[in-house]
C-alpha cells in the first residue's frame, strides 16, 4: 500500500512535469488519516496527494464537471477497479470526455471502513500497516491488530471485480478476487422472507432516512443536470406543497432511475450517515436484470445498451413477479 | 403416460410437422414396426402402450441421423429412448440378461459393445 502510494505520487509528478496532464484528481487527507476526501491538485498542491486504505471514494463522478471546465490538457485521475466501471458508464452516457482524461488504474485489494474499525473498539487511529491478511493499527492508545476482512468496506467484502476495465496505465499489484462474498446473498435473503418481514425490514431502514441527499450526491449515476426531485415541473418534487410524495418515494424512484445504469459501486451505502443499506435496492434491480434479461454489468463495456433501454421479443411478462411469490 | 415420455425425453412432440424426414433418414427403417415419424404423433395421441410393445425400441441404433436432420428439433431418437427407458425401468423389463452374454461373445468383440448393450437394454 505504502509502495503504491509512493508510485502514485511519483507518477502524478511525472505526468504533470512532462505536460501530459494539467490537473490531477486524487485523494487528500483531512484531519485524521482515515478522513480522506477527493480533491483536485496542480503542480503546487500535488504534495497533499495521498493513497491509503481509506481511499474508498469513487472519483469518476467528479470528472463530469471537470471535463466541462477543462479547456486544454488532460486531467489525471486515479481509478480503482470498481471505479473504472463507473467511468465507463459515464462514457457510455456521454457525460465525460475520454480525450480529456488520463486514467491511471490503481490495483486494489479492498478499502477499509473506519466505522467497522471503531466498532472493534479501536479508536484514535494514526497509522495502518498492512500485513496482508491482518492489519497492524497504530493508535494514540497504542498498537492494535485486527483481521483485514473484518474491517473492509461493505462494498469491498462483496467486490464484483478486480479487473480494471479502462485505463491508460496501471499501478500497483493485481489482487485476486477470491475472498469476495456473493454480492446477491443479502438480496436473496430478503427475497426469501415473507412479504410482511420484508416490509418491516424496509420500513425500519427507510424510516431512518433524513433526506440529506448524500446518496444522491455521491452516486455517479445520479448526475443529472437537474434532479427530478429538484424540479417543480416534474410533478414529483413539490417541496413547497407540503407533499410527502417525494419523501416516501425518493429511494424507489432513485433506484429505478439508476436501474441498468448502476455499476454497484456501493458509494450510496458508504456515505449514508444513517447506515441504510441502500445498495440492496440497486442490487435487487441488478439481480432481477441478470435473472430476467441475461447477465449485464453496467460499465463493463463502454457503449453497451443498458437493459432498460433494450428489450427482446420474448421477455418475461410482468406477471412473473406475481408468480414468483406464489410458488 | 405421454407426460412421462415428454418429461424423460425433454421433447415437445407437438413441434413435429409430420414431414417424415426422420423416417426418410433412418438406417434401420425397414427393421421397425413403428417408424420414427410415428413416435411424435403417437405420444401426442397417448398411444404409448403400442409404443411400449414396439420392436422399434430394440432396432433404433441411436445414430442420431434423425436428430441431426429433423427440421423441427423434435429429435425422435430421444423419444424412442424415453419409451425404451419406460420399458426397461419396469421390473422384468430388461431386454438383455447377463445369461445371454456368453453365447454372444467372440474374441474380438470390444467391451464397449457389451457396455453399450447393457446400458441400453437393461437397468
Amino acid at each position, binding site marked *: 500500500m505504502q509502495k503504491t502510494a509512493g508510485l502514485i505520487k511519483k507518477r502524478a509528478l511525472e505526468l504533470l512535469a512532462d505536460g501530459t496532464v494539467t490537473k490531477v484528481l486524487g485523494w487528500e487527507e483531512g484531519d485524521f488519516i482515515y478522513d480522506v476526501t477527493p480533491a483536485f491538485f496542480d503542480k503546487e498542491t500535488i504534495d497533499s496527494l495521498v493513497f491509503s486504505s481509506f481511499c474508498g471514494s469513487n472519483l469518476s463522478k467528479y470528472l463530469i464537471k471537470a471535463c*466541462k471546465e477543462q479547456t486544454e490538457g488532460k486531467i489525471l485521475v486515479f481509478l480503482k477497479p470498481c471505479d473504472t466501471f463507473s467511468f465507463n458508464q459515464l462514457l*457510455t*452516457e*456521454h*457525460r465525460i470526455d475520454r480525450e480529456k482524461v488520463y486514467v491511471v488504474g490503481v490495483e486494489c485489494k479492498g478499502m477499509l471502513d473506519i466505522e467497522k474499525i471503531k466498532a472493534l473498539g479501536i479508536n484514535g487511529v494514526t497509522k495502518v500497516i498492512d500485513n496482508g491478511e491482518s492489519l497492524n493499527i497504530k493508535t494514540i492508545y497504542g498498537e492494535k491488530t485486527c483481521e483485514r476482512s473484518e474491517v473492509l468496506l461493505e462494498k469491498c467484502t462483496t467486490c464484483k471485480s478486480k479487473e480494471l476495465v479502462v485505463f491508460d496505465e496501471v499501478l500497483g499489484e493485481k489482487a485476486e478476487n477470491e475472498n469476495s462474498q456473493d454480492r446477491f446473498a443479502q438480496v436473496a435473503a430478503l427475497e426469501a422472507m415473507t412479504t410482511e418481514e420484508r416490509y418491516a425490514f424496509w420500513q425500519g431502514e427507510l424510516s431512518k432516512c433524513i433526506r440529506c441527499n448524500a446518496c444522491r450526491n455521491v452516486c455517479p449515476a445520479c*448526475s*443529472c*443536470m*437537474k*434532479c*427530478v426531485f429538484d*424540479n417543480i*415541473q*416534474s*410533478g*414529483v418534487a413539490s417541496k413547497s406543497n407540503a407533499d410527502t410524495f417525494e419523501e416516501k418515494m425518493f429511494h424507489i424512484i432513485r433506484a429505478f*432511475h*439508476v436501474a441498468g*445504469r448502476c455499476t454497484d459501486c456501493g458509494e450510496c451505502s458508504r456515505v449514508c450517515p444513517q447506515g441504510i443499506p441502500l445498495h440492496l435496492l440497486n442490487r435487487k434491480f441488478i439481480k432481477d436484470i441478470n435473472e430476467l434479461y441475461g447477465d449485464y454489468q453496467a460499465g463493463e463495456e463502454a457503449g453497451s*445498451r*443498458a437493459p*432498460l*433501454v*433494450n428489450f427482446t*421479443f420474448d421477455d418475461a411478462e410482468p406477471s412473473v413477479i406475481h408468480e414468483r411469490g406464489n410458488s | 403416460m405421454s407426460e412421462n415420455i415428454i418429461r424423460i425425453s425433454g421433447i415437445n412432440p407437438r*413441434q413435429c*410437422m*409430420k*414431414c*417424415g*424426414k*426422420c*423416417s*426418410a*433418414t*433412418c438406417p434401420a*427403417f*425397414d427393421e421397425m414396426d413403428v*417408424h420414427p*415419424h*410415428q413416435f411424435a404423433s403417437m405420444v401426442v395421441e397417448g398411444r404409448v402402450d403400442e409404443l411400449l410393445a414396439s420392436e422399434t425400441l430394440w432396432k433404433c441404433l441411436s445414430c442420431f*441421423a434423425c436428430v441431426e*436432420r*429433423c*427440421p*423441427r*428439433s423434435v429429435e425422435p431418437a430421444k423419444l424412442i429412448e424415453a419409451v425404451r427407458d419406460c420399458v426397461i425401468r419396469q421390473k422384468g423389463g430388461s431386454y438383455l440378461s447377463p445369461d445371454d452374454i456368453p453365447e454372444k461373445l467372440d474374441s474380438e468383440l470390444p467391451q464397449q459393445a457389451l457396455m453399450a448393450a447393457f446400458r441400453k437394454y437393461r437397468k
Partner: protein
Amino acid sequence: MQRIGVFVCWCGSNIAATVDVDAVVEAVKNEPGVCFAKNYQYMCSEAGQALIKDAIKEHNLTGIVVCSCSPRMHEATFRKTAEQAGLNPYMVEIANIREHCSWIHKDMKEATEKAVILARAAIAKVNLNAPLQAGESAVTKRALVIGGGIAGLQSAIDIADAGYPVDIVEKSPTIGGKMAQLDKTFPTLDCAACILTPKMVEAAQHPNITLYTYSEVEEVKGFVGNFNVKIKKKARFVDSTKCTGCAVCTAKCPSRKGGNEFNCNLDTRGAVYIPFAQAVPNVATIDTERCIHFKTGKCGICQKVCSAGAIDFEQKDEFIEEKYGAIVVATGFEILDVTKFDEFQYTKHPDVVTSLELERIMNAAGPTKGTLLRMSNKEHPHDIVFIQCVGSRGNTCRDKTYCSKICCMYTAKHAMLIREKYPDVNVHVFYIDVRTPGKNFDEFYRRAVEQYNVDYIKGMVGKVWEKENGRLAVQGVDLISNRRIMLETDMVVLAAAIQPSKGVRNIATMLTASIDTNDFLTEAHPKLRPVESPTAGVFLSGVCQGPKDIPETVSQAGAAAVKVVGLLAKDKLVTNPCTATPNELMCNGCSSCARVCPYGAIDYVEKEVNDHGKREVRRLATVNSALCQGCGACTVACPSGAMDLKGFSNRQIMAEVDAICR
C-alpha cells in the same frame, strides 16, 4: 389561470339515463379554473356545437372539457368546433362518460360519482394544457425506389405515371431482378421475359424515371417529405453514354473462368460482361476482380476491340446526392444457401440443383439453351426428383421458420413443363404439404397431378447419394403408405427457402425501418398498413416485406406507389403536434432517449446553453418533430425528466392521477 368551460352531453338517454347530468354540472362548477358549465341533449349536434362556440366567445374561455362519448368518436369534432370559435384545438379535452361510464354502470349514483371524477381529471389536465401548433413541412416531390426487380419497377412506373419523378437504385448492372432469371410464370405459364422486358424498357424510357444501375444507397438523412440520399454509382469502367451494347468486348474477353451469376454459375462469363441479352441498360460492365488488366496491367483487349471507345479503365465511383419525399424499399430476395443441407449432396453432385438453377436450365437463354440436361454429363435425364421445403418451416439453425410460399407453385410449374416437353421423364415430388392458395392455383397443381401424371409423394427425403452408374439414389419415405421409398434418379431439384437480400439490413438501418428476426421489413400494421413501414415516408414493395409471388408483388408494388403518390401530392405535411420536446437546461445528453426511439427522431447537438447565467457547451438531445410520432418512450427513459411529451406531459398525467385519487 385558465378559463375553462365544461360541457356535459346527455347523448339523448345514453348518458342522461344513468348519469345525473345536472349533478355533474353542479359538481364541476367550483373546480379550479372552471367558469362555465352546462349540459345539453346532444353536444355534437349543430346546436350543441353552437352552444360551445357561443360560450367560448362569451366567457372568453381558454380551454374546454366536453363530457361525452369516447374521444375516439368526437374529439376531432369538438376540436374543430373550438377552432371555429378561435380557440386552439389542443385546448380541448374529452371526459369519456359514455363508453367508460354510463354504458357500463347501472347504478345512477355510482355512475354520476364516476362521471364527476372523470370530468375533474379532464379539467385538471386542461388546466395544464398549452396551445399546440401542428407543424408543417414541405414535401420534395420526388421518389426513390431501392431495387430494380419487378417490385421496384412496378412501383416506379406507377409513381412516374402519376406525374412524379422517380429514381431507381439497383445494385447490379441491370434492372430486372430475380424475375428476369425465371423461365415461365405460374399459373398461366407465360414466359417471364415476355412480360418483364417490356416493363424494363418502359422504366428505362419513361420521362419521369431515372435509373441508377450498378449503384447503391450510401447514406440516408432527413425524414418524411425531406430525405437526403447519397447514392454511389460504382465505376463500370465502361462509358455508358458511348457503349452501344454490341457485345464484341464480352465475346473477346480472354478471362472466362468465372461463373455467370445470371445463370446461377452454371456456365461462365467474361470479365467484361452484359448480364443477359435484354439487360437494361444494355451496357457492358468490367468485373475488376476477374479482369486481367486490373490484375496485371496487361491485356486491354476490350479497349482495342471497342469501336465506340467506351472502355475507360480510369473511371471512378461517382456520388450523387438527391432529395426525395418518399422512399420505396424493393430489395427483394435471394435463395438460401443450401450447402448446409448436404444430405442432399448439393455441393457434391452437379445433378443436384436448386429450383432457380432449374429455371436457368429450362430457359432458352440458359446454359443448355433451354434443353433439359443433366449438368454432370449433358445427357437427357429420365427421372427427376423434387424435394420441397428445403430450409423452410424448420426451427433449427440451418432453417427458416417461415413458409417460403412460392415453392409449391413453381414446383408444380416445373413438373408440368417437364412432363409437357419431355413425356418420357418421370417426375417425383416429395412434399410435406402442398400449399396453393391463390386464384387458379390449386387447379394448376391438380392439373400437374391429374393430367401430367406427376408423382406427388407425401414425405421427405432423408439422403441422396451417387450410384456407381453416376445416377443418384434417393432415400425417402411415403407417409401415406408408411413405407420406405428408394428411387434412382438423374436429377434432384431442391426447393430452397427464399430469404431477404443480404443488403437489406444495412438499408433498414439507414432508413431506421425495422426488420423482423428473419430480416423481413416490418409493416406499420400487418392488416391495415401492409405497404408502409412504421417509419413515415418509407414504403415496402415485394419480397423484402415477406415471401410472395409475382401477382402479389405487383399488387403490393402498386399499393406502395399509391401511398407514395398520396404523400407526394401534398404540398405540406401536417405534423402531429403532440411530440416529445427536451428541456435544454435539464438534458444530460446521455442518449437514453435516442436508444428507445423507434423512429430515429432524436439526435444530439453540441450547443451553448445559458444555465442561469452560466454559459457552457453541452451535448443536447434534439427531437425532429416531423419524425416524432409521440409515443413517449423517451420520456420515461430520460432519468432527469428533461424529455417531456406535449399533450401528455408529466404534469398533465400527474394532475389526472391526482384528480382521480382526490
